[in-house]
Protein backbone atom coordinates (compact mmCIF):
# COMPACT_ATOMS: atom_id res chain seq x y z
CA UNK A 1 0.00 0.00 0.00
CA UNK A 2 1.12 3.55 -0.71
CA UNK A 3 0.32 4.91 2.75
CA UNK A 4 3.82 4.30 4.09
CA UNK A 5 3.43 6.71 7.00
CA UNK A 6 0.28 5.07 8.29
CA UNK A 7 0.55 3.06 11.49
CA UNK A 8 -0.14 -0.66 11.15
CA UNK A 9 -3.59 -1.84 12.23
CA UNK A 10 -4.03 -3.31 15.69
CA UNK A 11 -4.26 -7.04 16.24
CA UNK A 12 -7.79 -8.05 15.22
CA UNK A 13 -8.11 -10.08 18.41
CA UNK A 14 -7.27 -7.09 20.61
CA UNK A 15 -9.55 -4.79 18.62
CA UNK A 16 -12.25 -7.47 18.94
CA UNK A 17 -11.83 -7.67 22.70
CA UNK A 18 -12.11 -3.86 22.71
CA UNK A 19 -15.40 -4.04 20.80
CA UNK A 20 -16.53 -6.83 23.15
CA UNK A 21 -15.85 -4.66 26.21
CA UNK A 22 -17.83 -1.80 24.61
CA UNK A 23 -20.67 -4.22 23.89
CA UNK A 24 -20.58 -5.52 27.47
CA UNK A 25 -20.66 -1.91 28.74
CA UNK A 26 -23.76 -1.32 26.61
CA UNK A 27 -25.41 -4.35 28.22
CA UNK A 28 -24.41 -3.25 31.73
CA UNK A 29 -25.35 0.41 31.32
CA UNK A 30 -28.34 0.17 28.99
CA UNK A 31 -29.53 -3.44 28.97
CA UNK A 32 -29.24 -3.39 25.19
CA UNK A 33 -26.47 -4.01 22.69
CA UNK A 34 -24.90 -2.12 19.81
CA UNK A 35 -26.43 -1.66 16.37
CA UNK A 36 -26.02 0.12 13.07
CA UNK A 37 -28.73 -0.55 10.50
CA UNK A 38 -31.45 0.79 12.81
CA UNK A 39 -29.85 4.23 12.53
CA UNK A 40 -30.16 4.03 8.74
CA UNK A 41 -33.84 3.13 9.15
CA UNK A 42 -34.44 6.16 11.36
CA UNK A 43 -32.80 8.42 8.78
CA UNK A 44 -34.89 6.98 5.92
CA UNK A 45 -38.10 7.09 7.99
CA UNK A 46 -37.41 10.72 8.95
CA UNK A 47 -36.72 11.64 5.31
CA UNK A 48 -39.90 9.95 4.06
CA UNK A 49 -41.84 11.59 6.87
CA UNK A 50 -40.55 15.02 5.83
CA UNK A 51 -41.27 14.46 2.14
CA UNK A 52 -44.61 12.67 2.45
CA UNK A 53 -45.95 12.58 6.03
CA UNK A 54 -49.19 10.81 5.11
CA UNK A 55 -47.32 8.09 3.22
CA UNK A 56 -44.97 7.53 6.15
CA UNK A 57 -47.80 7.37 8.67
CA UNK A 58 -49.67 4.82 6.55
CA UNK A 59 -46.66 2.53 6.24
CA UNK A 60 -46.16 0.24 9.23
CA UNK A 61 -42.40 0.01 8.65
CA UNK A 62 -41.72 3.77 8.69
CA UNK A 63 -44.18 4.53 11.45
CA UNK A 64 -42.31 2.06 13.67
CA UNK A 65 -39.33 4.40 13.56
CA UNK A 66 -41.32 7.61 13.95
CA UNK A 67 -41.97 8.65 17.50
CA UNK A 68 -45.39 9.89 18.47
CA UNK A 69 -45.64 13.33 16.93
CA UNK A 70 -43.56 15.74 18.93
CA UNK A 71 -40.20 14.01 19.36
CA UNK A 72 -37.64 14.05 16.56
CA UNK A 73 -37.17 10.57 15.05
CA UNK A 74 -33.44 11.28 14.84
CA UNK A 75 -33.27 11.76 18.62
CA UNK A 76 -32.70 8.04 18.78
CA UNK A 77 -30.22 5.89 20.68
CA UNK A 78 -28.83 4.18 17.59
CA UNK A 79 -28.59 7.37 15.52
CA UNK A 80 -26.48 8.95 18.28
CA UNK A 81 -24.43 5.78 18.63
CA UNK A 82 -23.63 5.87 14.90
CA UNK A 83 -22.66 9.56 15.13
CA UNK A 84 -20.27 8.38 17.84
CA UNK A 85 -18.93 5.64 15.54
CA UNK A 86 -18.08 8.27 12.92
CA UNK A 87 -16.31 10.44 15.53
CA UNK A 88 -14.44 7.44 16.97
CA UNK A 89 -13.39 6.18 13.55
CA UNK A 90 -12.18 9.64 12.58
CA UNK A 91 -10.24 10.07 15.84
CA UNK A 92 -8.56 6.69 15.52
CA UNK A 93 -7.76 7.31 11.83
CA UNK A 94 -6.26 10.72 12.63
CA UNK A 95 -4.05 9.41 15.40
CA UNK A 96 -2.83 6.51 13.26
CA UNK A 97 -2.43 8.79 10.19
CA UNK A 98 -4.76 6.57 8.21
CA UNK A 99 -7.13 9.24 6.81
CA UNK A 100 -7.02 9.11 3.01
CA UNK A 101 -9.45 10.69 0.52
CA UNK A 102 -9.33 7.63 -1.68
CA UNK A 103 -11.23 4.59 -2.90
CA UNK A 104 -10.43 1.08 -1.71
CA UNK A 105 -10.68 -1.37 -4.61
CA UNK A 106 -8.86 -4.16 -6.39
CA UNK A 107 -6.54 -3.38 -9.30
CA UNK A 108 -8.88 -5.07 -11.76
CA UNK A 109 -11.67 -2.48 -11.65
CA UNK A 110 -12.15 1.28 -11.96
CA UNK A 111 -13.22 3.64 -9.17
CA UNK A 112 -16.55 4.01 -10.94
CA UNK A 113 -17.10 0.26 -10.94
CA UNK A 114 -16.18 0.15 -7.24
CA UNK A 115 -18.81 2.82 -6.46
CA UNK A 116 -21.45 0.83 -8.34
CA UNK A 117 -20.48 -2.32 -6.44
CA UNK A 118 -20.54 -0.48 -3.11
CA UNK A 119 -23.94 1.04 -3.87
CA UNK A 120 -25.47 -2.24 -5.07
CA UNK A 121 -23.93 -4.13 -2.14
CA UNK A 122 -25.25 -1.48 0.24
CA UNK A 123 -28.73 -1.76 -1.24
CA UNK A 124 -28.73 -5.55 -0.83
CA UNK A 125 -27.53 -5.16 2.76
CA UNK A 126 -30.21 -2.57 3.44
CA UNK A 127 -32.94 -4.94 2.28
CA UNK A 128 -31.38 -8.00 3.94
CA UNK A 129 -30.78 -6.25 7.26
CA UNK A 130 -34.33 -4.96 7.44
CA UNK A 131 -35.81 -8.33 6.55
CA UNK A 132 -33.69 -9.97 9.23
CA UNK A 133 -34.28 -7.11 11.71
CA UNK A 134 -30.59 -6.39 12.15
CA UNK A 135 -27.11 -6.42 10.70
CA UNK A 136 -23.63 -7.59 11.68
CA UNK A 137 -23.79 -5.28 14.73
CA UNK A 138 -27.34 -5.63 16.04
CA UNK A 139 -27.78 -9.30 15.25
CA UNK A 140 -24.17 -10.42 14.81
CA UNK A 141 -22.60 -8.89 17.92
CA UNK A 142 -25.57 -8.20 20.21
CA UNK A 143 -27.51 -11.35 19.34
CA UNK A 144 -24.34 -13.43 19.17
CA UNK A 145 -23.37 -12.50 22.73
CA UNK A 146 -26.91 -12.92 24.12
CA UNK A 147 -27.16 -16.34 22.42
CA UNK A 148 -30.21 -15.46 20.31
CA UNK A 149 -31.10 -18.37 18.00
CA UNK A 150 -32.19 -16.06 15.16
CA UNK A 151 -28.95 -14.08 15.38
CA UNK A 152 -26.81 -17.19 15.00
CA UNK A 153 -28.95 -18.29 12.04
CA UNK A 154 -28.40 -14.84 10.53
CA UNK A 155 -24.61 -14.98 11.07
CA UNK A 156 -24.39 -18.39 9.40
CA UNK A 157 -26.68 -17.34 6.51
CA UNK A 158 -24.68 -14.13 5.97
CA UNK A 159 -21.37 -16.01 5.71
CA UNK A 160 -22.98 -18.58 3.37
CA UNK A 161 -24.33 -15.76 1.14
CA UNK A 162 -21.00 -13.95 1.14
CA UNK A 163 -18.94 -17.04 0.29
CA UNK A 164 -21.42 -17.97 -2.45
CA UNK A 165 -21.10 -14.55 -4.08
CA UNK A 166 -17.35 -14.01 -3.51
CA UNK A 167 -15.98 -16.12 -6.42
CA UNK A 168 -18.00 -14.01 -8.88
CA UNK A 169 -16.45 -10.83 -7.46
CA UNK A 170 -12.81 -11.93 -7.22
CA UNK A 171 -11.75 -9.45 -9.91
CA UNK A 172 -13.17 -6.54 -7.92
CA UNK A 173 -10.68 -7.09 -5.10
CA UNK A 174 -7.53 -8.64 -6.57
Amino acid sequence: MSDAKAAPYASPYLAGVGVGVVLLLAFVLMGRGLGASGAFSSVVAAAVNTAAPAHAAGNAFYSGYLTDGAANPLRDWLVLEIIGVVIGGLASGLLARRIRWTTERGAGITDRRRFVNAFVGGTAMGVGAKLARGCTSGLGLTGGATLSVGSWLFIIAAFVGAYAAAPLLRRAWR
Partner: protein
Amino acid sequence: MMGGAPFYEFGRFGEGTSLVIAVLLGIAFGWFLEQGGMGNARKLSGQFYFTDLSVLKLMFSAIVTAMLGLFWLSWAGLLDLSRVYVPETFIAPQIVGGLVFGVGFATGGLCPGTSCVAAATGRKDGLALIAGMLAGVFVFGEAFPAIDRFADSTARGAWTLPQALGLSQGTVVGILVAVALGAFAGAEWLERRAEHPARPMKLAA
Protein backbone atom coordinates in the same frame (compact mmCIF):
# COMPACT_ATOMS: atom_id res chain seq x y z
CA MET B 1 -33.21 -9.02 44.02
CA MET B 2 -30.27 -9.01 41.64
CA GLY B 3 -27.62 -6.30 41.64
CA GLY B 4 -27.66 -2.95 39.95
CA ALA B 5 -27.12 -3.67 36.26
CA PRO B 6 -28.44 -2.94 33.64
CA PHE B 7 -28.46 0.54 35.17
CA TYR B 8 -30.85 2.15 32.68
CA GLU B 9 -33.34 -0.68 33.14
CA PHE B 10 -33.36 -0.04 36.87
CA GLY B 11 -33.92 3.67 36.34
CA ARG B 12 -30.49 4.82 37.54
CA PHE B 13 -30.43 7.51 34.86
CA GLY B 14 -32.82 9.05 32.36
CA GLU B 15 -33.17 9.21 28.62
CA GLY B 16 -30.94 12.29 28.23
CA THR B 17 -28.03 10.51 29.92
CA SER B 18 -28.71 7.41 27.85
CA LEU B 19 -28.22 9.42 24.67
CA VAL B 20 -24.88 10.78 25.93
CA ILE B 21 -23.87 7.18 26.67
CA ALA B 22 -24.93 6.27 23.11
CA VAL B 23 -22.45 8.78 21.69
CA LEU B 24 -19.64 7.70 24.05
CA LEU B 25 -20.13 3.98 23.38
CA GLY B 26 -20.34 4.76 19.66
CA ILE B 27 -17.02 6.60 19.79
CA ALA B 28 -15.35 3.63 21.48
CA PHE B 29 -17.03 1.21 19.02
CA GLY B 30 -15.83 3.26 16.01
CA TRP B 31 -12.36 3.57 17.51
CA PHE B 32 -11.87 -0.18 17.89
CA LEU B 33 -13.36 -0.91 14.46
CA GLU B 34 -10.89 1.51 12.86
CA GLN B 35 -8.00 0.15 14.94
CA GLY B 36 -8.83 -3.35 13.71
CA GLY B 37 -8.76 -2.18 10.09
CA MET B 38 -12.51 -2.52 9.62
CA GLY B 39 -12.71 0.84 7.84
CA ASN B 40 -10.82 -0.58 4.89
CA ALA B 41 -12.88 -2.54 2.36
CA ARG B 42 -9.77 -4.11 0.82
CA LYS B 43 -8.79 -5.56 4.17
CA LEU B 44 -12.35 -6.68 4.95
CA SER B 45 -12.77 -8.41 1.60
CA GLY B 46 -9.76 -10.60 2.39
CA GLN B 47 -12.19 -12.51 4.60
CA PHE B 48 -13.98 -13.86 1.52
CA TYR B 49 -10.78 -15.04 -0.22
CA PHE B 50 -9.12 -16.56 2.88
CA THR B 51 -6.21 -14.11 2.73
CA ASP B 52 -7.08 -11.93 5.76
CA LEU B 53 -9.62 -13.23 8.25
CA SER B 54 -9.67 -10.15 10.49
CA VAL B 55 -13.47 -9.90 10.24
CA LEU B 56 -13.94 -13.35 11.73
CA LYS B 57 -11.26 -12.79 14.38
CA LEU B 58 -12.61 -9.39 15.45
CA MET B 59 -16.25 -10.39 15.42
CA PHE B 60 -15.82 -13.62 17.38
CA SER B 61 -13.36 -12.05 19.86
CA ALA B 62 -16.01 -9.41 20.55
CA ILE B 63 -18.83 -11.96 20.90
CA VAL B 64 -16.77 -14.21 23.22
CA THR B 65 -15.70 -11.25 25.38
CA ALA B 66 -19.23 -9.87 25.81
CA MET B 67 -20.74 -13.35 26.22
CA LEU B 68 -18.30 -14.35 28.99
CA GLY B 69 -18.77 -10.94 30.62
CA LEU B 70 -22.56 -11.30 30.65
CA PHE B 71 -22.36 -14.83 32.04
CA TRP B 72 -19.97 -14.06 34.88
CA LEU B 73 -21.51 -10.71 35.86
CA SER B 74 -24.86 -12.46 36.05
CA TRP B 75 -23.35 -15.35 38.03
CA ALA B 76 -21.86 -12.88 40.51
CA GLY B 77 -25.31 -11.34 40.96
CA LEU B 78 -24.20 -7.98 39.58
CA LEU B 79 -26.40 -8.04 36.48
CA ASP B 80 -29.97 -9.23 35.90
CA LEU B 81 -29.72 -11.19 32.66
CA SER B 82 -33.49 -11.28 32.24
CA ARG B 83 -33.41 -7.51 31.71
CA VAL B 84 -30.88 -7.65 28.89
CA TYR B 85 -32.40 -7.37 25.44
CA VAL B 86 -32.21 -10.54 23.34
CA PRO B 87 -32.86 -9.92 19.61
CA GLU B 88 -36.04 -11.74 18.68
CA THR B 89 -35.99 -14.73 16.38
CA PHE B 90 -37.93 -14.84 13.10
CA ILE B 91 -36.49 -17.99 11.52
CA ALA B 92 -37.35 -17.66 7.80
CA PRO B 93 -36.88 -13.87 7.38
CA GLN B 94 -33.56 -14.05 9.24
CA ILE B 95 -32.18 -16.85 7.07
CA VAL B 96 -33.32 -15.19 3.82
CA GLY B 97 -32.27 -11.74 5.07
CA GLY B 98 -28.90 -13.16 6.11
CA LEU B 99 -28.29 -14.65 2.65
CA VAL B 100 -29.19 -11.36 0.91
CA PHE B 101 -27.08 -9.46 3.43
CA GLY B 102 -24.12 -11.78 2.84
CA VAL B 103 -24.24 -11.31 -0.92
CA GLY B 104 -24.33 -7.54 -0.35
CA PHE B 105 -21.44 -7.81 2.13
CA ALA B 106 -19.22 -9.59 -0.44
CA THR B 107 -20.24 -7.12 -3.17
CA GLY B 108 -19.86 -3.95 -1.13
CA GLY B 109 -16.90 -5.07 0.98
CA LEU B 110 -18.14 -3.29 4.10
CA CYS B 111 -21.05 -3.76 6.50
CA PRO B 112 -23.38 -1.01 7.75
CA GLY B 113 -21.32 -0.18 10.85
CA THR B 114 -17.92 -0.36 9.18
CA SER B 115 -19.10 1.74 6.20
CA CYS B 116 -19.45 4.65 8.64
CA VAL B 117 -15.84 4.14 9.77
CA ALA B 118 -14.70 3.90 6.13
CA ALA B 119 -16.49 7.14 5.27
CA ALA B 120 -15.09 8.85 8.40
CA THR B 121 -11.56 8.01 7.29
CA GLY B 122 -12.12 9.43 3.81
CA ARG B 123 -12.95 6.27 1.87
CA LYS B 124 -15.26 7.31 -0.99
CA ASP B 125 -16.50 3.73 -1.44
CA GLY B 126 -17.75 3.92 2.14
CA LEU B 127 -19.91 6.91 1.20
CA ALA B 128 -21.26 5.04 -1.84
CA LEU B 129 -22.13 2.09 0.38
CA ILE B 130 -23.94 4.31 2.90
CA ALA B 131 -25.98 5.76 0.00
CA GLY B 132 -26.78 2.19 -1.10
CA MET B 133 -27.84 1.21 2.44
CA LEU B 134 -30.24 4.15 2.61
CA ALA B 135 -31.63 3.18 -0.80
CA GLY B 136 -32.01 -0.45 0.33
CA VAL B 137 -33.87 0.54 3.49
CA PHE B 138 -36.14 2.75 1.36
CA VAL B 139 -36.80 -0.13 -1.06
CA PHE B 140 -37.63 -2.37 1.88
CA GLY B 141 -39.90 0.28 3.41
CA GLU B 142 -41.83 0.71 0.16
CA ALA B 143 -42.09 -3.05 -0.35
CA PHE B 144 -43.02 -3.69 3.28
CA PRO B 145 -46.84 -3.71 2.88
CA ALA B 146 -46.40 -6.45 0.23
CA ILE B 147 -43.94 -8.64 2.18
CA ASP B 148 -45.29 -7.86 5.64
CA ARG B 149 -46.57 -11.42 6.13
CA PHE B 150 -43.25 -13.06 5.30
CA ALA B 151 -41.28 -10.54 7.35
CA ASP B 152 -43.40 -11.37 10.41
CA SER B 153 -43.50 -15.13 9.87
CA THR B 154 -41.93 -17.91 11.98
CA ALA B 155 -41.69 -15.70 15.04
CA ARG B 156 -40.10 -17.41 18.05
CA GLY B 157 -39.61 -14.43 20.36
CA ALA B 158 -36.54 -14.05 22.56
CA TRP B 159 -35.46 -17.63 21.87
CA THR B 160 -31.96 -18.53 23.03
CA LEU B 161 -29.55 -21.31 22.18
CA PRO B 162 -29.69 -22.84 25.70
CA GLN B 163 -33.49 -23.15 25.32
CA ALA B 164 -33.28 -24.49 21.76
CA LEU B 165 -30.57 -27.04 22.53
CA GLY B 166 -31.83 -27.98 25.98
CA LEU B 167 -28.40 -27.25 27.50
CA SER B 168 -27.42 -25.04 30.40
CA GLN B 169 -26.29 -21.54 29.50
CA GLY B 170 -22.80 -22.29 30.81
CA THR B 171 -22.48 -25.30 28.52
CA VAL B 172 -23.48 -23.23 25.48
CA VAL B 173 -20.99 -20.53 26.50
CA GLY B 174 -18.27 -23.16 26.84
CA ILE B 175 -19.09 -24.69 23.45
CA LEU B 176 -19.03 -21.29 21.74
CA VAL B 177 -15.67 -20.41 23.32
CA ALA B 178 -14.28 -23.70 21.99
CA VAL B 179 -15.78 -23.08 18.53
CA ALA B 180 -14.34 -19.55 18.42
CA LEU B 181 -10.85 -20.66 19.47
CA GLY B 182 -11.00 -23.46 16.90
CA ALA B 183 -12.05 -20.95 14.24
CA PHE B 184 -9.14 -18.67 15.24
CA ALA B 185 -6.67 -21.53 14.85
CA GLY B 186 -8.20 -22.33 11.46
CA ALA B 187 -7.99 -18.67 10.43
CA GLU B 188 -4.29 -18.49 11.34
CA TRP B 189 -3.63 -21.63 9.32
CA LEU B 190 -5.51 -20.28 6.28
CA GLU B 191 -3.64 -16.96 6.45
CA ARG B 192 -0.26 -18.71 6.67
CA ARG B 193 -1.25 -20.84 3.69
CA ALA B 194 -2.27 -17.71 1.70
CA GLU B 195 1.09 -16.10 2.49
CA HIS B 196 3.20 -19.14 1.61
CA PRO B 197 1.22 -20.93 -1.10
CA ALA B 198 4.13 -23.33 -1.71
CA ARG B 199 3.67 -25.18 1.57
CA PRO B 200 0.28 -26.82 1.10
CA MET B 201 1.27 -27.79 -2.44
CA LYS B 202 4.24 -29.67 -1.05
CA LEU B 203 1.95 -31.34 1.43
CA ALA B 204 -0.41 -32.30 -1.34
CA ALA B 205 2.41 -33.76 -3.40
